[in-house]
């Protein structure tokens, strides 16, 4: 069931995007206009259920009259704006953002990146071979405002071992682009749990609990709201993480079934993601009027009554 929220009628404004005149509701963003007009705009840190953080800068567009490029995801439409979404300036910055991210973060499971790299001619390898991954805990111990002199032979990355400190989900921060979505979702925008934060500064910024305590020692309540918004696979349910790690990941053998959560009377929709008749992930549609993509621990992880948990040996899960 979907309901339409009642909204006060808004004024519309006229603006020009790539030479075409568009009319858009006041209060909307340039990204809304681009999407409505079918102008493909890359986004990474943007989430449809969250306030834009405009941190990744891959959606930047050229707005006449402003000195710098502006993020389409958060810039509000105004009467008379003239916007260019595919100028040389825009293409250059988008290409560089893709190269800078691609050279420092593992984007192998991030939707859309391969096509954008192709489209903008991005070459993440241009900065040189990747430096060796950090040891476990090394990035979390970084001293703010300090860094070692770079090794001229390699390019620095955020590569590090995944954090597996609980049975339900894995934090693989070598894949983290620092979009802040998990922090915002865990905090005041959805969950109000505030278990995680961005810590440190500059290239040493990482998503962390206080003093990097393990999740079971933190405020985490395992609703998995962070998993739902992560765009890069840095946060994955353990079952999916293991499928990918063991090489058993087979999208062609997967299907998704949407049902209703049996636990309480709220009636959240659950989408069960299944491979070979085994659930590896539970999500909820982000446009669902009740959940907005969020669930609690029971909905997200409490499917043991349909599928007992696997034992994990030293070589991974028993299959």
């Amino acid at each position: 069931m979907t309901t339409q929220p009642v909204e006060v009628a808004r004024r519309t404004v006229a603006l020009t995007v790539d030479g075409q005149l568009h009319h858009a509701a006041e209060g909307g963003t340039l990204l809304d206009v681009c999407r409505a007009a079918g102008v493909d705009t890359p986004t990474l840190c943007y989430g449809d259920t969250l306030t834009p953080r405009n941190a990744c800068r891959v959606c930047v567009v050229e707005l006449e009259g402003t000195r710098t490029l502006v993020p389409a995801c958060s810039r509000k439409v105004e009467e008379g704006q003239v916007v260019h979404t595919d100028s040389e300036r825009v293409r250059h910055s988008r290409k560089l953002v893709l190269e800078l991210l691609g050279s420092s973060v593992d984007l192998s499971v991030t939707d859309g990146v391969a096509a954008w790299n192709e489209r903008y001619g991005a070459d993440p390898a241009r900065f040189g071979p990747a430096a060796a991954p950090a040891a476990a805990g090394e990035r979390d111990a970084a001293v703010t405002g300090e860094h070692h002199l770079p090794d001229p032979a390699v390019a620095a990355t955020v590569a590090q071992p995944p954090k597996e400190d609980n049975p339900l989900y894995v934090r693989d921060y070598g894949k983290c682009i620092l979009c802040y979505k998990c922090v915002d979702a865990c905090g005041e925008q959805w969950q109000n749990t505030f278990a995680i934060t961005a810590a440190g500064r500059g290239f040493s910024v990482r998503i962390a609990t206080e003093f990097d305590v393990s999740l079971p020692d933190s405020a985490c309540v395992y609703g998995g709201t962070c998993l739902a918004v992560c765009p890069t696979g840095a946060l994955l349910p353990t079952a999916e993480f293991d499928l990918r790690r063991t090489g058993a990941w087979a999208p062609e053998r997967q299907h998704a079934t949407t049902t209703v959560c049996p636990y309480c009377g709220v009636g959240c929709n659950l989408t069960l993601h299944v491979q070979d008749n085994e659930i590896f992930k539970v999500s909820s549609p982000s446009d669902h009027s009740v959940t907005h993509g969020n669930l609690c621990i029971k909905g997200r992880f409490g499917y043991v009554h349909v599928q007992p948990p696997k034992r994990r040996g030293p070589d991974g899960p028993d299959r």
Partner: protein
Amino acid sequence: MDLKLTSIEPSPAERAAVDGLLGPPAGAAALRAERGGSVLRAQRHRLLPALWALVERVGHISPEGLGYVARRLGVPPAEAYGVASFYAVLPLAPMPTAHVAHVCVDLSCRLAGERSAELRARLAADPDTTVVDSPCLGLCERAPAALVSTPGAPPQHRLEAAPRREVAQRGDASLVLLRRVDVVDPTDLDAYRAHGGYAALRRAFDIGPTEVLREVLDAGLVGRGGAAFPTGRKWQAVAAQPARPHHLVCNADESEPGTFKDRVLMEGDPFAVVEAMTIAGFATGCEHGWIYLRGEYPLAARRLQDAIDAARAKGLLGADVMGRGLSFDIEVFRGAGAYICGEETAIFNSIEGYRGEPRSKPPFPVEVGLFGRPTVVNNVETLVNVLPIVQFGAAAYRRVGTESSPGTKLFCLSGPLVRPGTYEVPFGTTLRELLALAGGVVDGRPVRAVLLGGAAGSFVGPDRLDLPLTFEDTRAAGTTVGSGVVIVFDDRADLLDAVGRIAAFFRDESCGQCVPCRVGTVRQEEALVRLTARRDALDVPGSTAGDLQLLRDVGRAMRDASICGLGQTAWNAVESAIDGLDVFGDSSPEEGTE
């Protein structure tokens, strides 16, 4: 909010430090969780002061100490950790020794050469002192410099630097901004009044806020922090905002490498800052004034606090200023080692108890600023300029300087000069005249380059010494007045070392929020390390041409796509060194890159 607080108790010293700031906890129940709902949430801006209190008392922030602060203020521990870990001078692990020496490794102190190494060696020789690298401490005229901190009750701070220098122009009748510095006792309110103090505020009350706004607008005063935005327009915009209250923030986070003029003003004439802020508050309808002071200025912090207390005691601050019905008061808020917190919206987040990350603009501070209210943010020097404007009128102010850059400007001269220091000259003075005021280069050596405007500014070569220092002339020449930094490099200086340091500085000081700056500053430094290694005939991958193109590509994306001025300017000085000084011997920019 669902707070999960640690139950581990803080040490008595930690508890005393936090309670000393916040007062004793209210009752036994508060030992588990502070009560108070909205009252407690309104205390969030005391988070950074509480973390500071821990560091000043016990030297670092322990999990127990952080947990206690979180409990007292109702802040999630993870968020408190995110804030604590943002700042460079808030250690999260115990320091191994009683004293910590923050030794400046920035541009001016590097130019002190062997004396820098000697200072470091002398401090490191003490087994009770840990030496840590620090970005510019704002003591460039006394280079090499270090700040030695000793936690305790009370904490102690000791400067290790060349002897203090009085203002070289002391007593010069043409001085406007520096006229009281080193002449009038900065701790004596009566002496300040005897030397013209509070005449400007009296005239402000006589002519009313609208006329004050008009004078500031007519004077053509623009911001002295680096961005050169017209002050009068900013004031008018805030004055016209219906939302209340309005806030005034004095940006005293002077952290641009090579800048120390605001410190000289705050230490030497603190009442001028207080009076100017009072006028600004009167004109723009602000009841609250904040001085966001960089954490490494302990003397300025004391002088300002003493001046505020003295002014309040005499009815020059408070509920009824000078009996004229104005309610205005000032609070000093100490930063904690973060250059980015000089960015006007990062200041707001820092004061509010969040990570000092710049906000997206629009909305601009004049509409949505500190605590979501209309806010004026002005640099210290900008505010002090308001005194002569209001006291003598815009026309008199405009008699000095040029049409587009009226008034005088403070310049911070450092490097191998005979008399480094702060100099006040009319706009339009040339670089050559300015260097002559400082006695020229030591031993009469030739100038190889001058860094104008600090790390975010640009290098100019010796062919530009006749450049008049105005906003319009420097802009036309592709450089900047910026915050007034003039660092001189003579023919012996290693410019590549300076360029490398600038790149390292931006990498350290990037807040890390946006990709172009967070990763771009890393790639910029890496490319410079490769280029420098190649100069030194080391075998490194890639080519000089390839690395220069990479720098240009990354630099352009940082300038175009970063959120704030830090990322947008992180490539300026490097670019000017490559193109203007030819430091890599291949200066021609490739077609179509600019």
